[in-house]
């Protein structure tokens, strides 16, 4: 709940979170590294990455995007996902009052660094319920194998 409340104007916890961040900078862990490709929290679309012994699973939460406008590319171990979402708010209508426009509209691009054993030839992608699920299999030779003792 914290993360989504942060980016709303006048959100309940914005001040508390800001104070916490300032305190952390003075007293907290200084010099902790973050990913060089890290983005601000709340960037559209949100991404979750999971790992299984045989694959890397990436979930991109991008509701209301036309799958034909989604572009997924893998280049030198970096998966880049880009696309565009049109705004659903009508413009130019008479007597239209806009109360909230929190949903993202426009172009977006996210990148995910894949591990060395990820095989770019074995990728599947499905878009369902607004979530793009990308599965990248790991190379066969890199997977843990059980060795039989005869």
């Amino acid at each position: 709940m914290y993360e989504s409340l942060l980016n709303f104007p006048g959100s309940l916890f914005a001040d508390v979170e800001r104070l916490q961040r300032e305190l952390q900078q003075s007293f907290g862990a200084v010099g902790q590294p973050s990913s060089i490709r890290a983005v601000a929290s709340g960037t559209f679309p949100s991404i979750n990455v999971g790992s299984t012994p045989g694959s890397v699973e990436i979930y991109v939460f991008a509701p209301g995007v036309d799958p034909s406008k989604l572009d997924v590319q893998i280049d030198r171990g970096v998966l880049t996902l880009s696309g565009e979402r049109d705004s659903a708010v009508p413009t130019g209508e008479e007597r239209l009052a806009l109360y909230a426009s929190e949903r993202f509209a426009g172009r977006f691009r996210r990148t995910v660094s894949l591990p060395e054993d990820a095989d770019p030839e074995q990728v599947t992608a499905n878009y369902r319920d607004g979530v793009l699920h990308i599965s990248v299999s790991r190379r066969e030779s890199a997977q843990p194998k059980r060795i039989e003792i005869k």
Partner: protein
Amino acid sequence: MNDKQEVTKVEPKNDAPALLPRVDVFEDGTGITLLADLPGVPKDKLVLRVEGDTLQVEGEITPTTPGNMEAVYAELRLPRYLRAFTLSSELDTEKIEAQFKDGVLRLRIPKHAYAQPRKIEVKVT
């Protein structure tokens, strides 16, 4: 396409942590339109509730995760969305229309017939 609307009198409050879905809300002469981002919620896990003058949107996220998956990096950490709105009396909650596609909920809440803008003819005698 209409979604079922549940009107309940007494409902135990579910205080489990939930994400606030982002919404677009705009009003024209005949009613209010609400769009909400609820990615990861299948149609059968979306619940819309109208209690008196409160509209509640709730959705449970059910992703297709393989059983042996370990989370490496997560920006979305809570398993449900929940957001509520108070509606004003000129909105006709009996006639709410809902569409849910690709994780985007679109609600249309029309105003009562008596509240819709009407031009009054001024006759000159």
